[in-house]
């Protein structure tokens, strides 16, 4: 019943929206996200544990993504080093290139690039897969057949992405540093030992811990966003496409937001 259709003398109709229609939708969506996350954290601790599915998802998310992410990381290492050189050359400080590459790749580029590529590849795959399962009512069928679809589909994928994105980040970081070394060696004739000495001289344990924590959070975000979007996709083929697209966009957006917040926290810890 619309508010403008109330007639004088009759009891006022109940308000349809708490705030506005759009705001109410956002809050409802947030509540759904909260419930989805809460359900994950409830179900992850209790059996049955779907190890087989988790391994399968780890293979799909981690091993199958390795060539793409490694190649991207290697190219980024070369390009970043090459683009940074002129700025340092202005100060006659090209010998500081390894330190610059180290700080940039280990602190930011490694986890971020890995997460963004994984969001594009893995997030969209999870969203599309779960969306199509929702559209074809396979999830409903699993519920009917006394199988917990959330545990089988969501928990396994989120755990796999949470575990595999940090592993991919390690590979990406190493390969990016090797790419940087290749460029530095070509131009400055720096040896591998000196390069890695300078790389580790510029960083601290906090940088490694921060990078690892970030990649875990990014992995969880990618898995959770993909699963949420796919698990709650609307019916129809259009819903599958929307779920896949929305998974990528939302995951990337959240990754940048998280990067910003984590950076602030880490800087505060470093200053302390």
């Amino acid at each position, binding site marked *: 019943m619309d508010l403008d259709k109330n007639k004088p003398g009759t009891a006022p109709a109940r308000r349809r929206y708490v705030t506005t229609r759009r705001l109410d939708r956002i809050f409802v969506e947030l509540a759904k996200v909260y419930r989805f996350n809460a359900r994950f954290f409830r179900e992850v601790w209790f059996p049955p544990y779907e190890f*087989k599915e988790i*391994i*399968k998802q*780890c*293979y799909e998310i*981690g*091993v199958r993504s*390795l060539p793409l992410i490694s190649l991207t990381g290697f190219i980024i290492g070369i390009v970043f080093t090459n683009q940074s050189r002129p700025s340092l050359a202005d*100060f006659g*400080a090209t010998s*500081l290139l390894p330190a610059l590459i180290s700080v940039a790749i280990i602190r930011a580029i490694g986890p971020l690039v890995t997460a963004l590529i994984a969001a594009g590849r893995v997030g969209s795959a999870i969203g599309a897969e779960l969306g199509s399962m929702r559209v074809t009512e396979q999830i409903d069928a699993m519920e009917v057949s006394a199988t917990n679809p959330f545990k089988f589909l969501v928990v396994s994928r989120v755990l796999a992405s949470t*575990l*595999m994105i*940090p*592993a*991919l980040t*390690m*590979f990406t*970081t*190493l390969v990016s540093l090797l790419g940087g070394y290749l460029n530095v060696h070509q131009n400055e004739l720096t040896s591998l030992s000196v390069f*890695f*000495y300078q790389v*580790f*001289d510029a*960083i*601290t*344990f906090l940088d*490694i811990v921060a990078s*690892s924590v970030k990649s875990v959070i990014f992995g969880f975000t990618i898995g959770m966003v993909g699963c949420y979007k796919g698990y709650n996709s609307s019916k129809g083929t259009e819903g599958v496409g929307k779920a896949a697209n929305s998974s990528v966009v939302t995951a990337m957006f959240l990754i940048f937001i998280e990067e910003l917040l984590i950076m602030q926290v880490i800087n505060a810890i470093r200053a302390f």
Partner: protein
Amino acid sequence: MSSADNKRTVIVGIFTFLAIVILVAGIFTLAGQQKRLISTISVTAIFDDVAGLRTGNNVWFSGVKIGTIKSINLYGDSQVEVVMNIEEKVQQYIRKNASARISSESFIGNKNIVIDGGTQRAAPIQDGDRITAVSPLNTDDLMEKLQQNNENLVAITGDFKQLTSRLVKGEGTVGALLTDTTMAQNFRGMVDNLQRTSESTANASRSLTAFTHKLNSPDGLANQLVTDKEVFQQLKNSMTQLEEATASTSEITENLRTASSRLNNNNNAVGVLLNDQDFARKLQSTMQNLETGTEKLDQNMEALQSNFLFRGFFRRQAKEQAKQKEQQQSQSAPQQVQPKDTTQLEFKPSKLIEN
């Protein structure tokens, strides 16, 4: 579990293992580089200013990295206590009188602490010891001095600009020297003169060298003065005589001074003659009277010669004188001598006065 699932599991395991290996290798490399896996001792130093030093920065000794900064704490009113972790194996090389200073790994690089100094007489440093801190060269101070230098440089270049401008315009001596050809020629002449002078000086120097060489020869005076005792004794006697002569001269000088002082007084004849003006006027008047008297006497004598009473006397006198002269001439020379004019033998009292 099917073989495909098994293979997939193994691959995932290898993948995860490799990722963990990369992480662990990185952690151990970092720990090794930051000296976290070796036994260390803790050493402190109190600085007035740590210039941006941070926890984890390196500690160097003789160009070798020996530890890291463990903590940085404010100390006292405005000082800073820096705690350093130093490798235990280098403990024996660092002495208690070593000093720590804050340095920089490069111009734009991280700060670090450099430990230097320390003598072998001092004991090796121990865990918990505090070493002397040397205040670092503050970048702000450095920049301030650089700014002062820049200002001085600007002033110098400004002055130099004015100077060169005046030189170009031909102002001043140097400007004229550069532009005025006449002055340049004069200057060239001056340089030539200088060259000649220097050549003369060189010749003089050579002569002086030869002279001194002669002086140094065994037969030379200087050498004899130094070595010959007889010459020295003669010289000593001469000096004694010279001293006596000097004493006599002093006595004479004293007598002269006394005489001259007496001449300045009027209590003696010469003093009156020299100093008394009245007497001088009287004497002048007397002399004038005397001159007048002699003139009149001259006239009287001339009149007397003309007198017939005395004319014979004067003639005889003239003849006797002529005879004496002839005799003298005949004795000295046989030739005939003309008799002298008798008028020359005339007695003139006025000439006597003039002489």
